[in-house]
Each structure stands twice: as C-alpha cells, then as structure tokens.
C-alpha cells in the first residue's frame, strides 16, 4: 500500500542522466502521460536504453531530454517513416546513437532481468552493428567505468566451449536505472496485468532498478489474484503506481484504445525541424498544465472514436485506410 503517486511525482523519481526504459512496442502501449511530463519538467541527459523505440522516444529526443539513444529502431510505423527528431539531432551531433539488433536488445534486457552481465547469441552476425568502428559510446569515452551501468565494451566474441558450434556474440546486460511501464491493470499493491501481446515488458521491468507502473485502472489485488496466471509482475518489483486512463495516447493500448494515427502523423509532419517541434510542444505539452488538460483538449469525440470494442479488443469502427 501507499505506492499511489501522481504523474508529476512519478517524473520526480527520474534523475537527470538516468538510464531509462519503457513498456510497449513502437507505437503501442507507451507511457505517454509520463513522457509529456518528463518534457514539461525538462529532464536532461537521459540515456534511453530500449528494446525498440517509437513516437515516445522521438518526442523525448526532440525536446532535448536525451543524450544517448541505445536501441534498434525508431519511427512511427505507418504514420511516419523515421524518427524525424532523432534524424535531425544525430545529423547535428546532438544525440549519440548506439545501435544493436532487435534480438540483441531483447537479450540485453533479458540478461539485465536475469542478473547476469552478458548473454551469448547468434543474432545479426555479419553486420556493421558489430563493427568496432561504430561503437559510439567508446568513441565518446563513455565506456570508462564512470557510469557503472554502461558496459566496458559494446560486444565480444567467444568460442562455444560446449558444443563447438562456432564463435558467438556476447552482448552486455541492459541495466536501466528506471522503467516506466503503461499497462491495462495494476493491483493496489503493484501486481501487474497486461492484456494482449506482452512485447518485452517483463524483461524491461525486471531489468530496471526502479519501476513505475502507470495503469488505465488500479484494481483490487483480490481481483487480479483470482487469475494469477494472467499476471506478469509481483508487487515487490513495483516502486510506484499511477492511475492514468488514456495514459498511452496517442499510442494504442490493447483492449482499451487505438493508435491515434492522425495525431502521430501530425506530430511526425510538424516536428522535422526544431522550430516545428518547439511549436508542436508548445501546443500539446507546455500549453497544457497536465495530462487531464491534454485529454480535455483532445475532446470526448476524438477519444470516443478510438475506444476499443470490448469483444474485438480494438475499435472496429475507427476509419483506418482509404476505403
């Protein structure tokens, strides 16, 4: 008990320079209410370490909150073909990128969750991802041990000593300071239930030192414990709980609401320049005091049009294509 806090207090738990990770997948189930508040509170020098990124990551980058982006992918799926803000900031040398492959990032997070320093894999041999010339954290002298969560090397190669199958890649564990996860339901003590695809949430939550769960609704523990097999995280792994309905908008949430495609596309189109980003942020982030005001600005009609049908788990009426 006593874990309930506000979105503002949740962001207060994040320190400048933190290594941070999130729930979700590309444009699905991202903790957007917290993302907006991170930008509002002008957090600095964040080190994003993500299995994959998306609209939320590009927004943090555009707002100047990010020093390092360490992941495998950023974009807005159908609604924006690349991370326009990351593209601009990387070209200008304002953000450091460290690329791994998707499976490598997943395994790095899994190693973090398992409490081991590294993990072997066959994934993505033969690529420039493993080119030592492109080890950007080394190039920026960030692998010197001064940050204990940054590994000394990007990758290593080790012969399989057991089955003699060849040379494996060893990738270092991801060890985020904090994970912010948006889910459908959390118990009053912190038991977490996720509906639909779990993406890499379990690994991200377990790898992090601190965990904040933002949920569409906080429900009685007793309710979640009627079907424990549906839950993925026990209470003692959760430090704080926030209830924020619609808190993943404009990303989608299985069983709750659609991706707000036009909103994401508008963000992508308007934020290719820094001036464009600043104007967009003025309207949607700094121009509203909090997430509730943001929802009011979006309006009932827009939100209602995104609402999932409870049988399908998505909206069967939202207009999605050209027909």
């Amino acid at each position, binding site marked *: 008990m006593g874990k309930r806090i506000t979105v503002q207090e949740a962001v207060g738990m994040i320190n400048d320079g933190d290594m941070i990770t999130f729930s979700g*997948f*590309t*444009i*699905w*189930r991202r903790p957007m209410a917290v993302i907006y508040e991170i930008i509002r509170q002008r957090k600095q020098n964040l080190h994003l370490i993500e299995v*994959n990124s998306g609209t939320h990551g590009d927004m943090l980058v555009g707002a100047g909150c990010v020093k390092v982006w360490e*992941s*495998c*992918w950023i974009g807005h*799926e*159908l609604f924006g*073909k*690349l991370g326009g803000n*990351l*593209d601009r900031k*990387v*070209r200008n040398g304002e953000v450091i990128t460290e*690329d*791994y*492959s*998707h*499976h490598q990032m*997943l395994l790095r997070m899994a190693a973090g969750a398992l409490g081991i320093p590294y993990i072997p*894999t*066959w*994934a*993505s*041999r*033969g*690529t*420039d*991802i*493993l*080119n*030592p010339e*492109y080890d*950007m954290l080394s*190039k920026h002298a960030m692998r010197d041990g001064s940050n204990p969560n940054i590994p000394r090397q990007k990758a290593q190669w080790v012969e399989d000593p057991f089955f*003699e*199958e060849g*040379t494996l*890649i060893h990738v270092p564990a991801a060890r985020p300071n904090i994970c912010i996860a948006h889910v459908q339901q959390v118990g009053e003590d912190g038991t977490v239930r996720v509906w*639909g*695809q*779990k*993406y*890499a949430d*379990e690994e991200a939550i377990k790898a992090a030192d601190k965990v904040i769960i933002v949920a569409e609704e906080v429900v009685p523990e007793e309710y979640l414990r009627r079907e424990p097999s549906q839950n993925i995280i026990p209470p003692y792994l959760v430090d704080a709980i926030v209830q924020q309905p619609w808190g993943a908008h404009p990303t989608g949430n299985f*069983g709750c609401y*659609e*991706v707000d*495609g036009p909103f994401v596309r508008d963000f992508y189109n308007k934020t290719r320049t820094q001036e464009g980003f600043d104007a967009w942020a003025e309207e949607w982030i700094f121009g509203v005091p909090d997430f509730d005001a943001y929802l009011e600005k979006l309006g009932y009609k827009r939100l209602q049009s995104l609402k999932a049908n409870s049988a*399908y*788990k*998505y909206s*069967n009426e939202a207009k*999605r*294509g*050209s*027909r």
Partner: protein
Amino acid sequence: MEKNYAKPGEYKVIDLLAVAAAREVNDGEVVFAGTGLPMLAIMLAQKTTAPNSYLIYEAGTIDGKSLHLPASVGDARCVYQAAVASGLYDVFGQLQRGRIDLGYLGGAEIDMYGNVNTTVIGDYTKPQIRFPGSGGNPDINSMARRTVFIMVQEKRRFREKVDYITSPGWRVRKWPGGQMVSRQEAFGKTFRGGPSAVISNMAVFRFDEETGLMYLDTVHPGYTVNDVLNNVDFQLDVSRVKGETEPPTHEELHILYHEVDPEGIFLP
C-alpha cells in the same frame, strides 16, 4: 485449371509485389512477417497456395487469424484467435532456435550480395540521413532459413556497396576481424540459408549459390531488362532471365482488395 491473369493496367505495382511475395511461401512453413506488404503477402498465401502456413509477428503473436488487417505488428488485431500471444522473448527465441522457415524484409539500400542497409545514408558516425534502424531485420535475416526482400527499384538503392550493412547477405563481415567472407564461412556450423529473392517494383532477383551474387530472374510485365539495368548501380547478371514475372490473377486481386485489405490500409 486455367489461370485468369490480369493485364498491366488492371492492377497496381503494389498488387504484383504482394502476389509475387505470396508465391514465395511453401505450404506448411512458419513465416515471420513485418508490417505492410509482408502482411499482405502471407495473408494472401494463406488464402490461396499455403493454407497450412503459420504466421508469426515480431511483437509476439503466433498464428493469429486477424479479422481485420493489422496496421503494425504491435496492433491489437494481431492477437485475434492466435495460438499464443506472448512477446519478443518467445518469438525471437524460436527464430534463434531455428524454427522459422521464411522471413519477409525490406530496406533502403541493397548491394550485389544482398546486404541491406536500413540504418543510415553516409558515414554512420556522421550520417546524412538517419533511418529507423535495424529492427529485427538482421536477426530474421541471419537466423531464418530463407528470406525475401521487397525493395524499391532505383539506382541509388541497388548499389555495389551499401553505406552500412544492417542485415547480412551472401558476402558479409566476419567479426571480430571484419574481413569480407562468404556467409557460409562467416556462419559456419550454424549456417541455415539466407536471402533467396529480392522482389522490386520492376523485377525479381535471386542469388547465385556459388558466388552469392544477385542475378535477374524475371521481369515484371510492362518492364524490360534495360529498365532494370538502368536502375541498378552494379554489374547485374542478366544472362539467366527466365522471362516475365507471373502477373496477378483476378482471383488474387479480389482476395487482396476484398478479404485481406478491404479498408485500404496498405493498398490505397
């Protein structure tokens, strides 16, 4: 049965891409598909020539029977009637375990050995453009038994050498040294296969088993070998061209527009 082929003008290029990609699936295979054309291809294949194939989405659903076309692999629509809705740890684990037969992929640039770039244009350390990045492209391409690439045919995209090898073709870097060697040599005992076809808006390409070099296999109706050569920036082997790519049939077009993507999400 006589096939009722559509003529050029009766279909769009994207229709032909979806149909050509669908024909790469063998019945019973386990297929990893990404967002967009790959979804159209596998869903068409499941409704025509490969009804017993299994579809896996990278975000963590296995063998879903979507009632409505997902707009991305994280979409809630992926989950409907799936055998398993889990996560990345499950599906990427199966990929590494060797359970995936075929993967569909795309890219910004491809080279003569099928190496693909989806990361940057220019020097990685100081890029001219930053693309989305690898996603699962190199994982699928290094661990599935076979991959098929869907690409836009342009000179600047079919290059002798790509700016960054995001995804490994038939001649790749062997780390830790970084020397260019054959994929078979680089992967050793765990070599499973690699890119088997590249389907562009003009043609279908395949790779020589000995040299790993791309060659022209078929040219789409309405295009010539010269059109293709004018849109490739390396010495392309055109000595093995089999003829025209099989066009879509009216039945396939009907399924694509009325059953797979009636809402016009990827087929405008």
